[in-house]
């Protein structure tokens, strides 16, 4: 009843009683006692009085709704992180320590998440929304957010807005439906997982789809066959070398190159050895004079990149893709080969080819020798790529030694070194920072890396160092010391 009166009042009030006269219908019930004395035709005051009566009646007479109850979140199986740690994370996510900028706070939150995930501890429910928002804007933290969010994170994300979909608990393995309908990344993942389980089934799946795939997709899918690669794959990969698409041939060639004992490896080794010979203990390289069909079939790009001669290009590719062990024909060890003199014309190209070969074939023994040989001379990017494939202890030893010699050269290798740094490197850095003379060169860079590279257990030593240097240098060390202390606290609180 109050609804129909209200809409009468509303339509008059909207356009004004001057334009729409208001005549109230007769009412009964409790409201009648208030409305009847106002008369039937209402002036503006009468309308307002009636509206007030209806408004109060509606508010006072509000009825309960009867919605569906939601499903409760499943119980957690892991324990929650201690209260102090929870507060720390909340502070870091909300901007945290005013002394540090926003992105640093976020990085520290990332550290919190990694440590908690590693220790099997959960973030509290009150913080899950902040974590979902963090993961929505920064995909690099999603895995750790999922780990520390527990079952409630997935429960919440399922009900929440679409941008949280990444946090909904996913199937552990890729599904066959990913192959038929998924995006390229899903298809690559599915194929890779299938190949690892059943290489032949993966091969058949790809060969069946072969005709309708476009070149770039096929290249990506073919690259996924790296998983489960074995001698059985040689025949169909050899056939793939006959494909008319260069991208596809190139990937097939890389796979065959990684297959021990393949005919392709032998062909490439023969080509490489034909290009290089020994004359009076010097290594003399002679690139091929033309790129024939057989070379093209084996994945050599005939067209030169801009600024490079065709023959340089061919020679470098042949050296890059030839199996590195073929050089034992000339010398027992990589170090032995590199200690020889190279000829002036093509020697540099040969050496560059060897660097690419070590990177492409991920050969750590060659990488170590090439780094020692070329440190300080060569393109930094290439050196970093070489460093990335070295075994960690070797790299740490190399960097520690370099830090004692030339700080700025070593600094640029630091971000390739896995964190936390091993004691030899940390000790070398501390030694370097404590040295009045040496710490000035490349210091800032070194400190920025050290904030994250150091194991937080070094916090007291960093503090002691800070206190021992002259006042002007303390300011420079301040941030490093603070960061290490905060990281130390994070690790302690999550114990």
């Amino acid at each position: 009843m109050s609804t129909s009166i209200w809409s009468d009042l509303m339509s008059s009030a909207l356009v004004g009683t001057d334009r729409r006269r208001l005549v109230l219908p007769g009412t009964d019930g409790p409201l009648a006692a208030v409305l009847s004395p106002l008369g039937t035709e209402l002036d503006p005051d009468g309308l307002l009085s009636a509206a007030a009566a209806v408004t109060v009646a509606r508010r006072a007479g509000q009825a309960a709704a009867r919605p569906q109850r939601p499903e409760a979140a499943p119980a957690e199986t892991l324990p929650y992180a201690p209260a102090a740690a929870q507060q720390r994370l909340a502070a870091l996510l909300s901007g945290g320590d005013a002394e540090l900028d926003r992105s640093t706070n976020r990085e520290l939150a990332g550290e919190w998440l990694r440590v908690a995930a590693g220790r099997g501890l959960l973030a509290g429910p009150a913080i899950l929304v902040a974590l979902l928002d963090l993961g929505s804007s920064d995909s690099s933290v999603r895995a750790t957010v999922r780990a520390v969010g527990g079952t409630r994170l997935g429960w919440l994300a399922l009900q929440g807005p679409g941008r949280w979909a990444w946090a909904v608990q996913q199937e552990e393995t890729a599904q066959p439906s990913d192959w038929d309908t998924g995006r390229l990344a899903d298809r690559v993942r599915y194929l890779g997982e299938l190949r690892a389980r059943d290489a032949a089934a993966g091969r058949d799946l790809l060969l069946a789809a072969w005709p309708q795939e476009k070149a770039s997709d096929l290249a990506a899918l073919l690259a996924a066959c790296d998983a489960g690669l074995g001698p059985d794959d040689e025949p169909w990969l050899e056939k793939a070398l006959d494909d008319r698409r260069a991208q596809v041939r190139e990937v097939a060639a890389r796979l065959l190159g990684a297959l021990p004992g393949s005919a392709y490896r032998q062909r490439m080794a023969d080509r490489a050895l034909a290009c290089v010979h020994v004359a009076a203990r010097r290594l003399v390289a002679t690139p091929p004079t033309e790129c024939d069909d057989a070379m093209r079939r084996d994945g050599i790009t005939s067209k030169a990149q801009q600024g490079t001669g065709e023959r340089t290009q061919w020679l470098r590719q042949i050296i890059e893709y030839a199996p590195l062990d073929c050089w034992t024909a000339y010398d027992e060890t990589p170090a032995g080969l590199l200690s020889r003199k190279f000829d002036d014309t093509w020697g540099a190209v040969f050496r560059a080819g060897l660097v690419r070969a070590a990177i492409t074939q991920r050969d750590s023994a060659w990488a170590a020798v090439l780094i020692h040989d070329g440190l300080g001379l060569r393109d930094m990017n290439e050196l970093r790529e070489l460093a990335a494939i070295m075994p960690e202890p070797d790299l740490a030893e190399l960097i520690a030694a370099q830090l004692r010699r030339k700080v700025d050269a070593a600094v640029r290798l630091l971000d390739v070194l896995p964190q936390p740094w091993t004691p030899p490197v940390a000790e070398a850095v501390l030694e370097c920072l404590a040295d009045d003379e040496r710490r000035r060169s490349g210091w800032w860079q070194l400190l920025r890396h050290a904030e994250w590279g150091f194991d937080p257990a070094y916090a007291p030593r960093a503090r002691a160092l800070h206190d021992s240097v002259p006042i002007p240098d303390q300011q420079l060390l301040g941030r490093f010391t603070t960061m290490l202390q905060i990281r130390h606290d994070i690790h302690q609180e999550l114990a």
Partner: protein
Amino acid sequence: MSEPTEPPWTAEQVQGLAPDAASFAAARKLAGKSGWSSTGTGGSPSGLWGLCQGSGSTPYQICVDLAEPAYRCSCPSRKFPCKHALALLLRWSAGQVAAEEPPLWMTEWTTSREARATKKAEQAAAPRTEAQEKAAQRRADKRAESVAAGIAELRTWLSDQVRHGIAGLDQAGYRPFEQVAARLVDAQAPGLAAAVRRLAPVPSSGTGWEQRLLAELSLLHLLSGAAANPDALPDDLAATVSSRVGHAVTTEQVLAGPPVRDRWQVVGTRDDTEDKLTSRRVWLRGRDTGRAALILSFAMPGQALPVDLVLGTELDADLTYYPGAAPLRALVAARHGTPRACPVPGPAQTVAQALDEVSAALAGDPWLFQWPVLLRGVLAPGSPWHLVDPDGDALPLDPALGEPWRLAAVAGGHEITLAAEWGPAGLRPLAVYDGTEVARA
């Protein structure tokens, strides 16, 4: 006097006193530094003092009266309280200040404050002379006249809106409302002025604004009608109307009312800033009487709001209510003991009980737009979201607040106790109790 008189406040309470975030950050730094001496707490009324070495040769003297609270520091800062006082409070809160006999400079300050308070009280208590009495009467008459004129003007304006139609108000901006509100301020009816100002955002509040605006206009019409003719109303209702118009009631008058003793649970606090004036609403529910209460306080810019009532605690105290037909606003008249943590508040209401309570309150004060409820139930997503009690009855959450994801995360679909402000648009969550902890909603 070696016993600490009160347990220290929490760091969060101290933070509540800070005039701005920078002051608190500076205080936090300062509290951790060396350079503190002669710190102590004790005395009557309970105080806190200390010396802090600043940049000058003599250390700053800091005195704090914990009861009021009041501060004095010999530093030149214009912030109030300054970082030194805040830092001292932080040290005290961290248990770094021992109970001591107050030094001379502390007792001097306390004594001078007491003397000033006594003088003020004497002035207030002194019987008025006949001339003063007459002047007061003249002022009251003049004000009544002015308020009556303001009310008449408001009623004409309200009528005009309905006569000409409210449909175009969404194009008019805040101006029409501001003008009327300004007139009401001049007419010494600040309560009505604030009510008109609250209408200004309604036309731009999205779908259904016409409904909401007519409802509020009609309630203002009802209020101004009652205010124009207060003698026709019963005393309680007259008091409600008078306070809604904006007539102040003195603290003495309120404290003279009948005390209600209970274990008062702080179920929510909410700060609002309007016209540079910050207000803090502290919502209480009595554990034994089940009554609701509101402690309202105000602060000008740079002033700190009181922090003596902390969310998630309960206090055995006497409250006296402001006069009215649906008493809600109250003052703490006397405390019996110290506040205690209260992780499980009660008695929790069903939706039906809460609705009955709100109905009864509205019957007394039809202009009521906030009422604290303490509900138990599960949070159900939807538009709007609902809180569903064990009987299956539910109340909607105010959709204007957005989706309550944080609350949903804490509840996890399980039953929770939710403290909320009831309002015509729905519940506005204040705090959630999950059985062991209290979280601000």
